[in-house]
């Protein structure tokens, strides 16, 4: 009896042990594979297998590239209740996808090439159409300056020579100086009108152009850009290569973008790497002027050889008017490999999330469209389209300032350190009418100004008059700006009159400018103080007055010692 009991127990023990042995390797196998399975397939086209196509699970951050035979392997969750959308995309091809379950080794994706030619008869669609699905993105865009570049009153005033009230012959105007020319403003201020066949060639008529029912740099224009190429034939030295309208699936249109995993019947999306590169912005954020004939200017007085070479805009017959792109490019090129700032591009800072947009969204489309075609993404893989630039918050954080002082033998020495903290380009950038002023004051303990012994002063064109009216001429300080001059020596002239850059004191990215001042202290027992303000001015005071523009200075930062 006892023997039988013992035998039974032993059998149970062996069975349990064997079962454990069977289970253990399974557990171990699972953990080694990290709970993943794989999907395999090939990416092919009518011309054969597609090499270097980007393949991923729709919405995921990681992708894999196809090999020379178009083959790919994608890791997927081991247990998936439903088929997983595997997408493929490559520059020059429409994105496509296949639904596959984990373990599927036959998930093949066919890619179709985008048309080789552009269609100049294409009519751009209105942003209102895009907003039906991309409502949030369109709202951000609509608040940006990019959305209203055609109807920008200041641009129109400078073009026509009018003021804000419509008064003619009020200050400089391109058309006043060049009555027989249209200029090239439309190429950036009304780009869809500019590239449409029969579209407007001057900015005023662009507003009434039948080819543009909307204003500014629109969604469809930007997302029709296939590539950006260098040229010597445009004022920006860059040119967008367009591919417009592509009947591929029914009424869908060709849309270029950064995503290689957007596949839906409404848009025929095509992945284009240019959307994630800084030179995408070069088409408009760059402007040079070629001087007439063999005229040149002495650029050595303004720029170092390294800076000029970094601009890469040509010889001494070219004046750099707006060089935001070149400033960024030369900064990036000059950084050593491994530098923390290496690789930063325009989109990283000008298309990033803002607090007002929170909570984070995981989708770039809204409403019913989200349910039908939405791809869930990491917020870090979404670029909001507000295009911040020259906004108050960006200006206020672009520069920082510190002060130090020393008192010795009745002398007060003040050093001011101004740093381009956040700008990936020179500050201020863009239109040469913009400037940043350092306004410094040193006073005794009763508020009486101390006599300046050493240090720069602000020039007359910062305004002669009272400080409280924003006139700072003659005060201790410095102006940071690009100053254009004409052949007669007049400074701060509009670009079409410029024959040279008189000076360019703007602050280079991540660099600090040190300014030294010295003041006399009358009472050696007194405790003097110094106060510095950094002020951004969007255009010269004299220009604002003649154009009747509201001139609002922005206080970037202030500091005291």
């Amino acid at each position: 009896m006892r023997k039988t009991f013992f035998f039974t127990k032993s059998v149970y023990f062996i069975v349990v042990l064997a079962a454990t042995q069977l289970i253990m390797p399974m557990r171990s196998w699972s953990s080694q594979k990290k709970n993943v399975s794989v999907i395999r397939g090939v990416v092919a086209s009518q011309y054969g297998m597609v090499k270097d196509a980007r393949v991923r699970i729709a919405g995921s951050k990681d992708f894999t590239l196809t090999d020379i035979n178009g083959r790919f392997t994608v890791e997927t969750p081991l247990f998936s209740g439903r088929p997983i959308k595997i997408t493929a995309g490559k520059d020059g091809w429409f994105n496509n996808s296949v639904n596959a379950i984990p373990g599927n080794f036959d998930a093949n994706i066919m890619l179709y090439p985008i048309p080789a030619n552009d269609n100049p008869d294409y009519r751009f669609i209105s942003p209102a159409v895009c907003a039906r699905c991309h409502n949030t993105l369109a709202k951000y865009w609509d608040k940006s300056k990019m959305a209203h570049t055609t109807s920008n009153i200041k641009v129109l005033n400078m073009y026509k020579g009018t003021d804000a009230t419509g008064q003619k012959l009020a200050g400089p105007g391109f058309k006043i100086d060049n009555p027989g020319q249209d200029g090239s403003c439309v190429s950036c201020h009304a780009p869809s009108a500019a590239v449409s066949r029969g579209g407007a060639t001057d900015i005023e008529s662009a507003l009434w152009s039948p080819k543009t029912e909307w204003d500014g740099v629109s969604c469809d224009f930007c997302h029709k850009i296939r590539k950006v190429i260098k040229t010597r034939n445009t004022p920006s030295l860059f040119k967008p290569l367009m591919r417009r309208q592509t009947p591929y699936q029914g009424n869908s249109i060709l849309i270029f973008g950064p995503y290689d995993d957007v596949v839906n019947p409404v848009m025929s999306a095509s992945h284009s790497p240019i959307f994630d590169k800084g030179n995408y912005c070069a088409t408009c954020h760059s402007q040079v002027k070629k001087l007439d004939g063999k005229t040149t200017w002495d650029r050595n007085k303004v720029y170092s050889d390294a800076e000029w070479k970094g601009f890469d805009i040509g010889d001494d017959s070219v004046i750099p008017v707006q060089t935001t792109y070149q400033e960024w490019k030369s900064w990036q090129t000059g950084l050593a490999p491994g530098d923390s700032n290496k690789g930063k591009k325009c989109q990283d800072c000008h298309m990033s999330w803002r607090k007002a947009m929170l909570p984070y969204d995981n989708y770039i489309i809204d409403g019913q469209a989200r349910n039908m075609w939405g791809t869930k993404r990491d917020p870090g893989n979404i670029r909001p389209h507000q295009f911040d630039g020259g906004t108050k918050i960006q200006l206020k954080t672009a520069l920082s300032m510190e002060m130090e002082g020393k008192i010795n033998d009745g002398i007060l020495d003040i050093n001011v350190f101004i740093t381009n903290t956040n700008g990936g380009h020179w500050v201020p950038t863009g239109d040469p009418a913009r400037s940043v002023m350092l306004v410094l004051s040193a006073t005794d303990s009763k508020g009486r100004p101390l006599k300046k012994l050493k240090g720069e002063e602000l020039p007359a064109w910062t305004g002669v008059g009272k400080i409280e009216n924003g006139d700072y001429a003659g005060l201790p300080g410095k102006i940071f700006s690009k100053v254009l001059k004409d052949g007669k020596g007049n400074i701060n002239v509009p670009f079409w009159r410029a024959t040279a850059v008189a000076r360019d004191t703007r602050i280079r990215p991540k660099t600090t400018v040190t300014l030294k001042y010295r003041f006399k202290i009358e009472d050696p027992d007194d405790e003097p103080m110094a106060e510095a303000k950094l002020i951004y001015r969007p255009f010269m005071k004299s220009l604002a007055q003649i154009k009747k523009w509201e001139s609002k200075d922005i206080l970037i930062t202030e500091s005291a010692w």
Partner: protein
Amino acid sequence: MNTKRIFILGLIFLITTSTNALASDLLSGNIRAQGLRKQNNILVYLARAKGPLPSLQKEFVLDQNNLTFSPHILVIPEGATVSFPNNDKVDHNVFSLSRTKKFNFGSYKPGESHKVVFDKPGIVELRCDLHSEMLSYILVMKSPYYALTDKKGNFFIDVTGLAPGKYILKTWHEKLKNSKVSVKLPAALKSKLAIKLKRGAPGVLYK
């Protein structure tokens, strides 16, 4: 019996006096700042106060979440270490180009963290160049005699161990003019200081 009574009375005296000493070692006050909705985050400190350094906290955390540095103002003693974890959903690039401490981590991902030792007193302005709204200050202090105001503008500085005498109480806030008040210890411990501040250019912590 008498001995017992004397002992009890002595004990009561000791307890009472020691409690008073603890309470009176806090230099307290209230700040009213012009043009500020909340009166918090104003630094109040005794400049040039030298005393025995208590065992101060040496490790601090400055978090990043929802496009915000938290806390907005972090006051630390000289030599302290600050960690900068990215607890947000997007990449951040914490850096400082301040003369007090320069560093740049480059862009880093959610879940990652970096550390910096702040070995020099002064103001460190923190930025994230991917998100221009993100701004924070680390104030590195020479001595332990400092406090930040609460939302009502109240502050309490523990001055335990500080020798009696005259001191200069200073303030700092990013949007306010610095101010200084002369205080005499221990007399100043008996009343609550009242300080009014004006909007304007902030100065340095230490001249």
